[in-house]
């Protein structure tokens, strides 16, 4: 191994750069940045401001957060639906004012005041809601104007009532409890806010109205087309927003017991900064309660800290404005370029040194070229698309999957007539029959399904155990591709990759990273677990006659291995063939006790060399359009027969590529070999010259029909 190769190997083996892409593709990454900013702010402020983390300052912060957090939450709800509500600030101050008037001047009972304040909030929200929701005015400008209108009302009333308000005083215990009391040591107002936050969290993440709200913000027209009453939803968000702000004002009034001419001035900018900093998207569709909480804590701690440090008001507002601009800038860029960044970072090729490919054109080579598949009989030409796997039952009926999500059955023995046997929805890949004749199907993107002879479709499994070290969610089955059943009924199936969907298989080929696996589903317990992790595009599995082991293929390493799941060698894996001339796909048993193997494409020296140059492939993935990449050569494939020792016994080619350029599967049945290809529009049927004309795979494996 040359030193540059050693370096490439070590780098690819020990530097987990594929994790960057996986982390960036996570949804929680949106929260991670604001959260780290929050932690950093707390640490910095805590170290430069004395008493920052003292009990009294924390309880003060908690009460401020109860009010401010509620306002930010209100704004967040509106922003998720695609709008914006600047009037939060003046609804808040109006609520403070009217609470104090109600309590101090007219000495009304506290519940009555609270009810009145909430009604006022609903009323203010309804005004905004009608204007923006039903009259379709611009949210920003409209709420900016309603901000001024409510503010003017505040100032007019404040001047008239300020003396009466200041001289009055409430002795209500409830008022004191709301303002200064605690529940189990937690300030009352904080408890109220947390309950509301939790409720909103449930609504937004778990309930229908919340999902509709997000849909309206994410794609207004699609939401409308899907039957959501968009205008009413928008109307509701403004009502909810103003009501929450009114409650926040009520809490503020209870805490401070007074109001000034500047109460709530500039609150809208603070709340907006908090919402955007938390990661709520301007324009809607993205936002959560957690984001609102993170953002409001961040802004609150920041502004309190700046005041503590003696920084003057104007600089304070400059900093706030600058932070707002920066946050919006980053948010806009991130939203716009997220997919592009992800696409560049996600592909992360690994180092893969393949043994030299056996020569196929040398005399004496077991792979010697021929054209025996050129003269196959064609079944179902043009009627099916993408029969990745084919299988035959005891009655000579032929089954195959199609790209359209059907399983098509051709009636034996001539296979001229066909019908849709079952419709499942995803592209059926590998197939197998169990003891009682149920058809087991691996479906790309969906998982493992069972079709009973009476055509009832059952989902067997679509998830396996989540491994702790994996960043992408590897509990989901993304690309289950071949299946076989052990004599005791356990179902073993291969999954090609956990990093890509079926249509991106070529990108996984470019990576050649061990991200596939063998999975076992046990029908007796209904449990699924990963049997062998970290395989390179596991693709093809078949049981060995001993009933304790199976053969499986790994496409990109061009190898076949044998794994023992039972017996004395349990848990062991042995390489059977370590270097094929092409990329192996499905494996199936032959009538003479050996194995048929399909090669979906052939190796080429250029790609083999590129496999040892991960950096080169990464650059290629970044800079070259996907249709210009180096690909496995899938224009030519073949079928080979091998035995348990890994010796190649036979091979079948269609060198001209006239009928079967790409072969992904083959089944032997009563002297014929049936051929399927994932990109073909036909099934081939080849007469095997010296095979047992009565051999049926089901009878041979499960015994004659009961």
């Amino acid at each position, binding site marked *: 191994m040359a030193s540059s190769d050693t370096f490439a190997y070590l780098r690819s083996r020990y530097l987990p750069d594929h994790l960057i892409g996986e982390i960036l593709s996570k949804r929680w990454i949106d929260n991670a940045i604001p959260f780290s900013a929050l932690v950093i702010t707390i640490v910095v402020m805590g170290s430069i401001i004395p008493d920052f983390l003292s009990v009294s300052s924390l309880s003060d912060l908690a009460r401020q957060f109860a009010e401010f957090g509620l306002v930010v939450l209100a704004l967040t709800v509106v922003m998720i639906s695609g709008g914006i509500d600047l009037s939060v600030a003046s609804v808040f101050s109006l609520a403070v004012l009217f609470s104090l008037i109600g309590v101090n001047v007219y000495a009304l009972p506290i519940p009555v005041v609270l009810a009145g304040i909430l009604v006022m909030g609903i009323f203010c929200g309804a005004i905004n809601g009608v204007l923006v929701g039903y009259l379709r005015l611009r949210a920003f400008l409209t709420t900016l104007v309603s901000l001024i209108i409510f503010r003017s009302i505040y100032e*007019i009333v404040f001047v008239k009532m300020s003396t009466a308000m200041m001289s009055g005083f409430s002795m209500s215990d409830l008022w004191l409890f709301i303002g200064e009391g605690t529940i189990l040591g937690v300030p009352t107002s904080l408890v109220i806010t947390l309950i509301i936050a939790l409720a909103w969290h449930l609504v937004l993440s778990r309930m229908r109205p919340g999902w509709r709200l997000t849909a309206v913000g994410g794609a207004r027209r699609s939401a409308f087309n899907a039957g959501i009453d968009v205008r009413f939803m928008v109307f509701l968000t403004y009502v909810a927003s103003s009501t929450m702000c009114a409650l926040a004002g009520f809490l503020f009034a209870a805490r401070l017991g007074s109001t000034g001419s500047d109460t709530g001035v500039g609150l809208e900018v603070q709340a907006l900064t908090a919402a955007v900093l938390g990661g709520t998207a301007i324009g809607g569709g993205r936002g959560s309660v957690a984001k609102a909480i993170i953002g409001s804590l961040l802004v609150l701690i920041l502004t309190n800290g700046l005041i503590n440090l003696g920084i003057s008001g104007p600089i304070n507002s400059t900093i706030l404005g600058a932070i707002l601009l920066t946050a919006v800038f980053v948010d806009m860029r991130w939203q716009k370029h997220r997919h592009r960044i992800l696409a560049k970072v996600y592909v992360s090729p690994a180092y893969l040194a393949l043994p030299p490919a056996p020569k196929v054109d040398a005399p004496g080579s077991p792979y010697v070229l021929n054209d025996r598949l050129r003269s196959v009989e064609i079944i179902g030409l043009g009627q099916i698309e993408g029969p990745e796997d084919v299988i035959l039952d005891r009655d000579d009926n032929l089954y195959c999957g199609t790209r359209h999500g059907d399983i098509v059955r051709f009636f034996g023995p001539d296979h001229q007539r066909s019908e849709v046997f079952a419709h499942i929805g995803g592209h059926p890949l590998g197939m197998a029959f169990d003891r009682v004749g149920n058809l087991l199907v691996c479906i790309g993107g969906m998982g493992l399904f069972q079709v009973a002879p009476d055509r009832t479709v059952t989902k067997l499994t679509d998830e396996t155990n989540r491994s702790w070290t994996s960043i992408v969610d590897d509990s989901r089955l993304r690309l289950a591709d071949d299946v076989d059943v052990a004599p005791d009924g356990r179902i073993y199936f291969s999954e090609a990759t956990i990093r890509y969907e079926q249509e991106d298989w070529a990108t996984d080929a470019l990576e050649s990273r061990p991200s596939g696996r063998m999975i076992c589903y046990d029908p007796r317990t209904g449990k699924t677990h990963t049997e062998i992790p970290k395989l390179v595009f596991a693709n093809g599995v078949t049981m060995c006659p001993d009933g304790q082991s199976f053969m499986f293929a790994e496409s990109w390493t061009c190898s076949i291995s044998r794994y023992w799941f039972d017996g004395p060698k349990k848990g062991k894996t042995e390489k059977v063939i370590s270097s094929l001339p092409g990329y192996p796909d499905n494996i199936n048993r032959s009538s003479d006790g050996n194995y048929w193997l399909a090669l979906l494409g052939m190796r080429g020296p250029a790609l083999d060399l590129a496999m040892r140059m991960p950096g080169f492939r990464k650059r290629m993935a970044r800079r070259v359009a996907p249709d210009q990449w180096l690909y496995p050569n899938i224009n030519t494939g073949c079928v080979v027969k091998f035995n348990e020792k890994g010796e190649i016994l036979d091979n079948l080619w269609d060198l001209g590529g006239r009928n079967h350029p790409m072969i992904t599967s083959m089944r032997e049945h009563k002297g014929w070999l049936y051929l399927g290809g994932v990109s073909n529009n036909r099934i081939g049927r080849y007469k095997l010259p010296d095979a047992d004309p009565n051999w049926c795979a089901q009878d041979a494996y499960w015994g004659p029909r009961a």
Partner: protein
Amino acid sequence: MGKVRLSQEGVVFALAVALFAVFAVLLNNFLTAGNLIALVRSVSILGILGLGMGLVVIGRGIDLAMIATMVVTLSWVLSMAQAGTPFDTALAYGFLLAVAIGLASGILIAYADIPAIFTTLAMGLVIYGSGRAFLFQIDVQNTPSGVAWFDFLGRGLLFGLPMPIAAFAVLAALIALMLMRTRFGRFVYAAGDNPLAARITGVPLRPLIVLQYVVSSLIAFLAGIVMAAAVSGMSTRVYNSTMIYDVLLVVVLGGISLSGGRGGVRNVLVGTLLVGVLLNGMTILDITYTTQNLIKSLILLLAIMVDSFINPRDEQTSQQSQGDI
């Protein structure tokens, strides 16, 4: 349908005349020469600002930082002049500051794709805050004495008209010429009507947007000069007032659609007239400042509603990625 087409500026003009007539009949002091001069003089600043705002709104933007720009640049200029810098040099610095502010807003809007209303709202905060913190210390700046042209700008007469009005008229003529006759002006309409189409046809959309904000920023600076000359100083109180909404009121009432691409200088003139009459009448009626705010903002809301009915937003060209803002 029919031959009589009600244009918004016609309606507004009629409204202004009607309001004028009502005030003239009902209010004793309204129809005096002194009051009329005062009326026009007081709205000329609003009108100048309205010209800048109008330009940006035609290009489908908005500039909420105009008042902050006006206050900060002029306060800085005056405080420099007070400290002994020659007035012309100070003005040159102010000019550069205004250009810088316009460039900053414009670049953020055009190249960073931040919604204009967002950018300028935050820019207003940033400009005022940093100006107040770094550029000048006291709230009220006085004009330096002995600059002849500056005094003339404030108190002189041109053909019998007070200079602020003359300045407004000249600027209005210039902007009208620019909008109607220059390539820049026509591009502003094109970009405001349908930005993507304008871009596809080869209009340099982003530089154009930047230029609009630079121009509106400079107009704000100019308005500041006229204002400082007219009232012999500049106060930061102006920033804290709701003047920016008066400017918006002028533009929207005058009939420049917030959807962009429509309207012109004539609309600004009509809007200014109506708002001027309204403000003057309310002041004579002795309505308090806060109540005036309430009335003005209610009218603004009404105007926005009417605008959205007359010029409904085009779903095809309104910016979907930025939601309903």
